[in-house]
Each structure stands twice: as C-alpha cells, then as structure tokens.
C-alpha cells in the first residue's frame, strides 16, 4: 500500500512527543479504546435502524447519535495518526494495518452510498433490501476494522 510514503511522520516533533515519555503512548491507547466504545455503540444503533430495528425513534435522534459516532471516529483517527507517527515501523508493510485501512475506506464508501442513494428512507419507517444490506455490511466492516486493529501487533515485522 506504499505506506512508507508517510514514514516522514516519524521524523516530526510529533513523533518525538509520542514516545518522549512512558505515559503518552498508554494514555493515547486508553483514549483510542474509550473512543472506540462510543463509536461502536452509536454505530450499532444507526446500522441496526437501517436494517429495520428502532424505526420508531426519530431521524433527528439518529443524527445526534451520528454526531457522537463522527466525533468518536475523529478522535480514533487522530490517535491513530499519533500511533503511526510514534512507531511507523510497526505499521508500514503490516498486512493487518493495510487491511484495516481498506476496510475503513470500504465502510466510508458504504456510508456514502447510503447517504446518496437511500437517504430518502431516513424520514420513513420503510426498509428496503438494500438498506438492510448496507446496515449489516457496515457492522461487519467495522467489526473487521476492530479485528484488524488488534492483529496489528501480531503481524508487525
């Protein structure tokens, strides 16, 4: 995936800061994981609604949950970049990390597909085969992201 293009991140002051004390890395891990819980909880509610559950809760409610999901994803993204900067060697040429990035990209495309093709369903109680597929596919993709994230350590070169 040519992640070595981003190896320069390891030369930045940010990278030095991440590994400058024994406290920062574990703190970032704690933030990453707590944020992951917020992300997964909100995502499950939103995706299950696409598949037909919880339809009686309003779209406005789901948009509030979506904001939490996006905020949590942003925190995970930022802490993820800090992990990469602090220990680039662990992530470059790591098949688990590469697959994780691909799954995140696919999940993003899946969400965009819903937004541009099926968002008319948001204000209705209607469910289609496609929306059911999008919902379950999203849950599977993000479960895969978590699995790959945990595998990174085991596939580091």
């Amino acid at each position, binding site marked *: 995936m040519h992640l070595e293009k981003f190896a320069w991140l390891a030369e930045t002051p940010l990278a030095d800061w991440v590994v400058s004390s*024994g406290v920062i890395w*574990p703190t970032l*891990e*704690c933030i990453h*994981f*707590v944020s*992951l*819980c*917020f*992300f*997964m*909880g*909100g995502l*499950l*509610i939103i995706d*299950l609604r696409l598949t037909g*559950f*919880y339809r*009686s*809760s*309003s779209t*406005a*409610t789901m948009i*509030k*949950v979506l904001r*939490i999901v996006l905020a949590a994803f942003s925190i995970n993204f930022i802490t993820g970049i800090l992990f990469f900067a602090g220990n680039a060697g662990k992530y470059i040429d790591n098949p688990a990390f590469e697959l994780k990035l691909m799954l995140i990209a696919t999940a993003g495309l899946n969400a965009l597909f819903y937004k541009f093709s099926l968002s008319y369903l948001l204000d209705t109680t209607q469910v289609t085969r496609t929306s059911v597929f999008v919902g379950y596919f999203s849950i599977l993709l993000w*479960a895969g992201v*978590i*699995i790959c*994230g*945990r*595998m990174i350590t*085991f596939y580091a070169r």
Partner: protein
Amino acid sequence: MNLLTTLESTAFSEWVLTSMLGFPTLIALHSIGMAIATGLSILVALYLNRFLSGMAEEHLPRFLHLAMFGFSLNLVTGLALFVSRGADYITSITFLVKMLLVLISAVILGWLRRHLMKLLNASNDLYEDVLARKVSLLGIATWVGAVIAGRLIAYVGTLY
C-alpha cells in the same frame, strides 16, 4: 495458583498461546464485545441523563439487551484468555482493578435492564426515574474505568 498453572498447561491454553489464530482471535473478539457492551451502556446513560434526547423509551432496554450480548462475548473470550495466562494476570494490579470494575459494570447492566423493563411495564416514564439516572452514570464510570484498566495491564506492574 496451582490451579492456574494447571490450566495454563492444558492443550487449549497451548493452542491459545502458540497458534497464529488463538490469542489474536480471542483478543479481537474480546475488544468487539467490550465496545458493544461499553458503548451501548454509555449511550443509554446519556439518554437517561438527558445529554441526548428523542430516543423512543422502549428502545433503551433493547439497547441494554444488545449490550448484554456484547458482555457475554467479552466474558467468554476473557475467560479463555485468562485460562491461558491466568498465573500472570492474577498478579497484575490493573487486572484485578479491571475485574472489580467489570463485575460492578455487569451488575449495573443487568439491574438497569430489569429496572427499565419494570418501569416500561408499569407505564412509567423512564426519563423521570432518578435512581436509573444515577446508577447509569455510575455505569459510565465503571465501564470506562474497566476499559482503561484493561489497556494498562501491559504497562503497570505486578503485585509480587
């Protein structure tokens, strides 16, 4: 300690520790279970305490039901991980703190679900119940504490 050492020498423990799939698969499923249980418990607490609004109240116990599924996955994989390295884990301060917090969180999860169901069946307003609000807030603290303690097991020292 003898029991833990015996468990560590079983064929299952050996598979967990030496196969390419054992430990990584269990730890990955453990994380998914944790994220589901913790995430949904926190969201329900946010609704009960009105940090979020608009969710149909009959959905809250269902979220906690799903959280219990996540916790079950977390528990089963956690036990399998413990069997493989119990003698190490049992000497870790952070592991013991995590276990205490997980225990409290699980009790809160089970109680809150039953309590919300009772309120629903009695046609009471879930969002007006002060006890449910306070207990759910305690649940946020214990779940987040358990996640943090779990992450710190690899970093914080042992008892002896």
